């Protein structure tokens, strides 16, 4: 039982990171109908921003760690806006394939600029929060790093929920996702709302990057590739374009992966996890919470 709870806890904290990344994929898909493949590298930049911010003002307290998290989120929000402005906006009226290929290009650009600037060798990620472990009755062990993931992720999700459902820009995001032409006809400035969406998604990816690195303690310029791919799959399984779906898909993938990893089939973790997800898509092609969209001619 303790082992089950422990694994569930580990799975949830990994899944929370996938969820944070998956939200960015799904929100951008919602407003622009394309997959921003550079998103996984924004996650990586988020981790490096945390690394360098910590060097500049080392964190030795809860507040210091949170300040670094916020700084990294702000930096990546800006990065996301700049990427959209320079790489995607000029192609807004072109076919989606052009934008998709550009996204892959931006992804490679970020990865290899990262290698150039930071070096290809992994760097140890610092402890941003005071390190302690709590032992619960029955032997359940929780570290402050896991706690950070398990407390901060729900807070970030709640903040996102509020923004999307209650604010003017959040409502505009949903309006654009339903019908971009109708949205411009009522006076919504598409460019501004799209920038806002990129800022939001990139900030969450940065948070994911930091929380992930806290638990894996090593960062490198290609670290975003695999988690990014998994988060993308999580977003599809949840129903691409659907925000709660992305969170659900991320958590689900994290939990499945952790449990398989803890079993005797651990060498085939990714294969089994992905096979399960394919199975879900076979029965629900639009994803768990997604609705089938009829392609309009």
């Amino acid at each position: 039982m303790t082992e089950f709870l422990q694994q569930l806890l580990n799975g949830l904290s990994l899944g929370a990171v996938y969820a944070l990344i998956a939200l960015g994929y799904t929100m951008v898909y919602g407003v622009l109908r394309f997959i921003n493949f550079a998103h996984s590298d924004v996650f990586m930049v988020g981790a490096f921003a945390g690394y360098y911010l910590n060097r500049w003002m080392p964190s030795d307290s809860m507040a210091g760690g949170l300040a670094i998290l916020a700084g990294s989120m702000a930096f990546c929000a800006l990065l996301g806006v700049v990427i959209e402005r320079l790489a995607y906006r000029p192609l807004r009226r072109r076919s989606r394939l052009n934008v998709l290929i550009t996204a892959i290009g931006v992804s490679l650009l970020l990865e290899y600029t990262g290698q150039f600037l930071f070096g290809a060798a992994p760097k140890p990620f610092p402890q941003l929060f005071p390190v302690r472990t709590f032992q619960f009755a029955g032997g359940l062990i929780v570290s402050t790093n896991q706690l950070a993931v398990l407390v901060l992720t729900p807070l970030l999700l709640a903040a996102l929920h509020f923004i999307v459902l209650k604010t003017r820009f959040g409502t505009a995001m949903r309006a654009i996702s339903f019908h971009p032409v109708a949205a411009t006809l009522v006076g919504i400035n598409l460019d501004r709302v799209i920038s806002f969406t990129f800022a939001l998604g990139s900030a969450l990816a940065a948070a994911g990057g930091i929380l992930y690195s806290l638990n894996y303690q090593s960062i490198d310029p290609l670290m975003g590739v695999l988690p990014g791919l998994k988060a993308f799959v999580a977003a599809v399984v949840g129903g691409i374009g659907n925000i709660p779906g992305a969170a659900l898909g991320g958590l689900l993938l994290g939990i499945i992966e952790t449990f398989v990893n803890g079993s005797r089939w651990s060498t085939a973790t990714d294969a089994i996890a992905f096979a399960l997800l394919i199975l879900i898509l076979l029965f629900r092609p639009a994803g768990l919470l997604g609705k089938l969209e009829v392609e309009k001619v």
Partner: protein
Amino acid sequence: MTPPASTAAAPPPHALPADPLLEIRDLTVHYGVIAALRGISLSIPAGAIVTLIGANGAGKTTTLRTISGLIPARRGAILFAGRNIVGQRPDQIVALGISQVPEGRLIFANLTVLENLRMGAFRQPRRALIADDLDRVYQLFPRLRERPSQIAGTLSGGEQQMLAIGRALMSRPRLLMLDEPSLGLAPLLVAAIFEKIAAINRDQKTTIILVEQNANLALEISDFGYVLETGRVILAGRSTDLRRNPQVRQAYLGVS
């Protein structure tokens, strides 16, 4: 002003008053290689209801979409209150005071009634004014006041049309353009919607451009009318005159 292509049907110059709120000069629009508008000129007097009638493909919807900035003009000018608005983004054109209720209504079916209306006021920074405008829309369409938190996609067709008009009014337009507001509605509802359109024009002094398949209805409610055919204006004049015009009666009013 360039003369209309068909000189036989040219509008008498005195038919339309000077000092228009919106003036279109020699507007040409292409979809790829196909010409959708071939140099049309329109004059929309302030405070009037002007209707565009014509068969499918005549260019009515294209005209509205071009005014709203959704389609680029290849040639010509669109002057709103004396200022050329060609090349502005759709949301900038809304900010200038031109609002469109598009064909098929295009309400945000995934948002609530209130959220739809609030999106209509996206550019309005002052909450107090939004509240005033909301109240005005609710007075016009009491049905909407009863169900602010209903998901718009679950409204009936008539209610969706009311919502689309209400949403367009939330940006305080000086010019309201309606594309086929009667489409898909039962006759009784059509009459109700047209009553509201007349009320908006009368009470809020909003200038209106009405595109309508139902030419009878459109000429009844409007002050002036333009008849479009394959991207050209072939007739223009006071609606009362157009209703007596034998060409119009035969082609659009179903009277031989």
